[in-house]
């Protein structure tokens, strides 16, 4: 591994994770989406998760953040040794898990600056840090706004309301900078971005890379990984990781297409990211 000794416990350990989407009505069965996913990420590492549509990429992001509507049926998710699935979404956020949303949500009437201050102070309070007052927060925000070239005018507008696609994604990275998470999950942050916006977002993300922070970059395309160069690349198919490798795997995928791993990958045991555990057995659903 890149920066830390292999003996250190990974920051995020996902073992044989099975998860389903709950039906939206009162009847109907759960739809299994993740089918025995294993993944370990150490601090300081950036991992990319790639895969075709419907392979379970966003489901993994949502399960990590605790979004309602999903059920973990078996397996475990440990974040710094704690069982993530037993924590509420806000507890996970305060513990340092950050999700950059693929589709950031609009909150009419709530100014972006106010929202960010509430969020930053909620996280600070949970860490025993003093809350920032309006002026202190403004100073901090201005410094971080430079990272992703967010103009002041965007701060006084309602959260994400009427933001362009690029503004929304830059706003996500700004929030990441302000909340200073331990683990950042970027869910298709490149989707809907033109090349200039992609460059700004990527440079913001790169500025936030550090030895204490881990990142999981979820993307459909290899393009983003030209800018955010990962330490490891994993390919998700059918709800499990079917192939893992170094950054060159992304290029290979781009050249050969997902059909290549899906065909080759499912006929044999997947190559593992961390390799602490044996291959998946057929898991009994809980």
């Amino acid at each position, binding site marked *: 591994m890149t920066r830390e000794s292999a003996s250190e416990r990974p920051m995020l350990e996902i073992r044989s994770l099975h998860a389903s989407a709950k039906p939206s009505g009162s009847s109907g069965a759960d739809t299994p989406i993740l089918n025995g996913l294993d993944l370990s990420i150490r601090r300081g590492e950036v991992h990319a998760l790639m895969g075709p549509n419907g392979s379970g990429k966003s489901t993994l992001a949502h399960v990590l953040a605790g979004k309602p509507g999903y059920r973990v049926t078996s397996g475990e998710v440990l974040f710094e040794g704690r069982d993530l699935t037993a924590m509420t*979404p806000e507890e996970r956020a305060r513990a340092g898990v950050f999700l950059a949303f693929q589709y*950031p*949500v609009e*909150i009419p*009437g709530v100014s972006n600056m106010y929202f960010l201050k509430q969020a930053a102070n*909620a996280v600070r309070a949970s860490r025993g840090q003093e809350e920032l007052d309006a002026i202190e927060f403004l100073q901090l925000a201005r410094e971080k706004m430079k990272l992703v070239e967010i103009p002041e005018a965007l701060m006084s507008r309602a959260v994400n309301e009427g933001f362009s696609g690029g503004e929304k994604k830059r706003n996500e990275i700004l929030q990441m900078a302000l909340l200073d998470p331990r683990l950042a999950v970027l869910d298709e942050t490149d989707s809907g971005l033109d090349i200039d916006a992609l460059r700004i977002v990527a440079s913001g993300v790169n500025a936030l890379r550090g030895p204490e922070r881990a990142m999981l970059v979820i993307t459909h395309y290899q393009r983003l990984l030209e800018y955010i160069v990962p330490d490891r690349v994993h390919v998700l198919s059918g709800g499990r990781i079917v192939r893992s490798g170094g950054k060159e795997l992304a290029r290979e995928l781009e050249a050969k297409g997902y059909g290549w791993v899906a065909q080759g990958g499912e006929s044999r045991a997947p190559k593992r990211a961390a390799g602490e555990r044996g291959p998946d057995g057929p898991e009994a659903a809980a």
Partner: protein
Amino acid sequence: MPNETVEQLARREYKWGFTTPIEQDVVEPGLSEDVIRLISAKKGEPAWMIDWRLEAYRRWQKMEEPHHWANVRYPAIDYQAIRYYAAPRQKAKLESLDELDPELRRTYEKLGISLDEQKRLSGVAVDAVFDSVSVATTFKKELEKHGIIFCPFSEALHKAPELVQQYLGSVVPQGDNFFAALNSAVFTDGSFVYIPPGVRCPMELSTYFRINASETGQFERTLIIADRGAYVSYLEGCTAPQRDENQLHAAVVELVALDDAEIKYSTVQNWYPGDAEGRGGIYNFVTKRGKCAGRRSKISWTQVETGSAITWKYPSCILLGDESVGEFYSVALTARRQQADTGTKMIHIGKGTRSTIISKGISAGHGQNSYRGLVRIQKGADGARNYSQCDSLLIGDECGAHTFPYLEVANPTAQVEHEATTSKIGEDQLFYCQQRGISEEDAVNMIVNGFCKRVLRELPMEFAVEAQKLLGVSLEGAVG
């Protein structure tokens, strides 16, 4: 949103539900001409006032309790089971505020209302109405220096009889509607305000209404007159004890603005809303109307309605003077099993009259929230303009939001705009906030306050803070 969270919302605490133990002067339940004469006698009213009341009573007897058009459900009220007068026993005439019964002083302190003029932090003069009577009015002397009259209604009958006689019923006539007629017959206290020509009232005026006695209705009457070029900002607040039976509150408020005068009237209504099963709570049937009698006059209503089992209330503006302006800003919140049917009427009569309506309805629990608004542009109202915006926010799956806009335009030069939206606090919004470390409850508060911001910023500063807190308390436990 899961069901248990809705249950929690319905169980939220009502912090103002205590009762003050105090010796009272009460009239036995029941309504008759004798009871009306008794009330009038207790207040030492002139003969014309008694006649006026009795005329209203006779009209009321021929009217029917409205059960058809409003979107609220309630059993017929037994008017013979209500007490029409209850007052704490105290010295007939207080020489100064120091003589006020300490029990009453404590009550208002508990409610966060200071009757101590020394603690003039907020610069608000208060008229404190306890059941059927006003028990204290602050800053009367200071206001008198400016020629301003701010006193209990019963006192105004002696202090400014001509003004009362001229304007009482001039905006809301005795037979206007069932509850206004009842009020005209049995009204007890309320506030009277007169601002002389060209005077800008140096402080906020306010009335705090408290229902304390059981089985008693509160029927207050407020009359505010702003003479030519005068300005006044008036606030009212109200609370009541927590009881299993319903209590009736049927008030009438009349505002008159002469040439170039402006009246800003703000309400934070926090009557007891009843419990989770819909037991108890205040029936709030109120008629509020302002007349922009003069040219370029302006009347602005702002209301934050969080209490009452039933709210039935349409603060309205009659825009008679040319270029006069009417405004209505409203937040109405219904949780538990509360019902609200509230809105406004803007009647454009003068040329170049303008009106703005901003209504925000929030429903949670089993609450039912209706906006009902009339915009009428009469034939002579050349160039009249109206803008209406009615937004509804739903929390949970068991509540309802309804909008009933009525437009009557008889002048082709008028411009009328109406916008309406209904939205639900989405799981997506809550999850987004939570993912940023904000608790679900704080997220709901933040979203609700954002939704109401346009209205809350119309309130005077201290009131806005109060209202914001109140919305928070009212939604306490709205989510799990």
